[in-house]
């Protein structure tokens, strides 16, 4: 178990009937780093994501998320107590939490492979929905809000400021009042990231953020992800097929194939790993050496 991790995945297995999508997977996402999860189609990457964000309940395994460095010390006692989170509230066992609690309390945000914006709502409204939990408490669970009480107005103003800030960060402030569904594809991808950031996460999970982007757009995406890591101290976990993005920005890469981890390390190490090349290119053992030479 790594101590500088924000997320420790241990012996994660997910079975759908007879199909084992993820098989005894263990890895860690380090705090303040970009961790990429790659692998051929059907390797189980999105399944891992859905387990981390609570949309699937894993068949077995432990997903521990720590808000502080020494949070992981209480994993054993929390497991023993059969609780969802440690008593101090800085360690969360994600496999025991419903998805909305993972977003709200464990502070894990995510985006989706096929963009899931609220297409009829404006860009700004999308970002306001993301701040629902903060605002609903301030609105006195709606009762106070109906009468327009001051605490709610103050919080609403702060939420608007935060939304405007993130719209500026993703360069969409000019289209704040346009329906999200009317934005171009690349802008929708950026807006989805901004929306996830409005939930104030510590770990951001991005499911193929560069899918469908052109060269210029994926360059902008790289800059945005670096900004999140360096200036906002966000830990990122991303699934990506776009090797240009993965190799350029990842600090750490985990490679899956048929639900099993086949490599884990820095981009350079993974790129030269024989099993990774075999998984991607499907080459025979004899050709592996040659293929390794070509790809590096």
């Amino acid at each position, binding site marked *: 178990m790594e101590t500088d991790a924000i997320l420790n995945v241990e012996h994660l297995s997910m079975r759908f009937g007879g199909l084992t999508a993820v098989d005894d997977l263990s890895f860690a996402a380090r705090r303040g780093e970009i961790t990429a999860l790659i692998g051929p189609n059907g390797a189980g990457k*999105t*399944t891992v*994501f*859905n387990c981390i*964000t609570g*949309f699937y309940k894993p068949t077995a395994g432990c997903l521990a998320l720590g808000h502080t460095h020494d949070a992981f010390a209480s994993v054993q006692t929390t497991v023993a107590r059969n609780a969802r989170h440690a008593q101090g509230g800085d360690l969360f066992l994600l496999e025991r939490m419903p*998805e*909305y*609690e993972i*977003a*709200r309390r464990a502070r894990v*945000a*995510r985006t*989706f*492979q*096929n963009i*899931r*914006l*609220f*297409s*009829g*709502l*404006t860009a*700004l*409204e*999308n970002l*306001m*929905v*993301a*701040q*629902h*939990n903060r*605002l*609903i408490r301030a*609105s006195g669970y*709606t009762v106070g*809000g*109906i009468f*327009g009480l001051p605490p*709610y107005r103050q919080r609403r*103003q*702060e939420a*608007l*400021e*935060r939304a*405007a*800030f*993130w719209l*500026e*960060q993703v360069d969409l*402030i000019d289209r*704040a*009042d346009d329906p999200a569904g009317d934005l171009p594809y690349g802008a929708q991808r950026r807006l989805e990231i901004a*929306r*996830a950031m409005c*939930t104030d996460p510590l770990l951001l999970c991005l499911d193929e953020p560069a899918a469908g982007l052109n060269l210029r757009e994926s360059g902008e995406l790289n800059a945005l992800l670096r900004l999140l890591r360096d200036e*906002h101290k966000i830990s990122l976990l991303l699934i990506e097929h776009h090797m240009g993005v993965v190799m350029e920005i990842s600090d750490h890469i985990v490679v899956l194939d048929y639900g099993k981890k086949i490599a884990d390390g820095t981009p350079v190490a993974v790129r030269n790993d024989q099993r990774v090349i075999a998984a991607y290119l499907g080459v025979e053992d004899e050709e592996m050496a040659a293929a390794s030479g070509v790809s590096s």
Partner: protein
Amino acid sequence: MADDPALQPTADFRPEGAEVQAEARQAGLPPRSAKPVESRSIAALKDAAIAAFVALALSGPIVGLVMVPGPSKALIVQQRWVPVAAIVAIVFIGRLLLNLFVWNRARQAATQPRPLAQRLPPIGAFATPLLLVLAVGLPILVIYAVPDQSRYILGVGTLILTYIMLGWGLNIVVGLAGLLDLGYVAFYAIGAYSYALISTEFGWSFWICLPLAGLFAAAFGVMLGFPVLRLRGDYLAIVTLAFGEIIRLVLLNWTQLTKGPAGINQIPRPSFFGLPFAAGPGGFSETFGLAYSPNHRIVFLYYLILAMALITSVVTIRIRNLPIGRAWEALRYDEIASRSLGINTTNVKLAAFAIGAMFAGFAGSFFATRQGFISPESFNFMESATILAIVVLGGAGSQLGVAIAAVVMIGGLEALRNLSLLKSVFGENFDPTQYRLLAFGLVMVAIMVWRPRGLVSRRRPSVLLKDLKRPATDSARQAG
């Protein structure tokens, strides 16, 4: 996960397809002006003839043949070909004129993508104050202008306002949260029976029973909400439909409590905050030094339901701009994404059901006190369908659209009842009320063809960037 059908939102309340098709149809048609004038009018004639034939085929059996009791009490077929001829002629001439003058011109103007919907100015700007002034001024107007008809007109006005209130209440569930509820009348019934039972058993006043009825209905809203949390679209519609029927059947069969089909009568009429509308001393007219008139109660009921409807509207508009309202709309678009943002969709859905049901409960207790008598008959599926039709035709999510749709649907049907013009065309025995459902259907088809998203389909954002009063950009930076 993307292809997992369980995670995809199923049905959706936006008939986008029809609108897109309509646009494509209009854009794709070659401009008629390119053809020579003669062939164009021949084509128009042919088209009108086809339309007339369809009209004949439809109206021939429906209008032309009637079964009437003959001299020996057996049914005989009576033929009425004059009205059929009138219908066919109207269709033929109307279609011809439309072909020659209206559609022709619309097709020539290829630059206009959506003729009717887009050329109209936003009607909300002038329609809302106009309707409001009309609604407030109606009793005064009616009592001075047509005193002998005032009782009837105000009765119709009260009925329309009841439906507007129900429409606005259902709009929360269907229009905002996107949960298709076909059993909304159940909450109306629960409100009515709560009021009737509490006031007849305990003798409590209307103003105490009203909130209680709302609370009961809201509690039942939550009760319905729990089992249907996982359902959407068609499946949700079926369960809510069943819920409506279950409530009606319980009311019908639980005779010890509800007196079954006999209903509850002698429900206390509302008083003017304690002053009964009676002729004697201590009554409303006596206290205010007015001459007694039965109109007082009618006018009071009218203003009561107007106030209740307006409160419904104001509360809905305010809620829409609050986090819960935005969460409802987000839920309508994408439930998975809402959950990924930390929204507890269970609570959000239950809140929608509860608040929507609460307003139906209020309306139900008003209904009970106005009628003085209720029975399960009043709460059948037809009522749910009417309220849902009002919401869908008005434009799900739009307050103004729902109000207009209620006026057209309820008021229009009442007006139809009184049109003597129709009798002069179709003969003395013509009863327009028998054609209620036909008119209903025609209006629905017409609106779904021309305005597939309802009368008022423009969505007003709940928050705009200009709502943010920014002192300087630095403070915005700190907020992130």
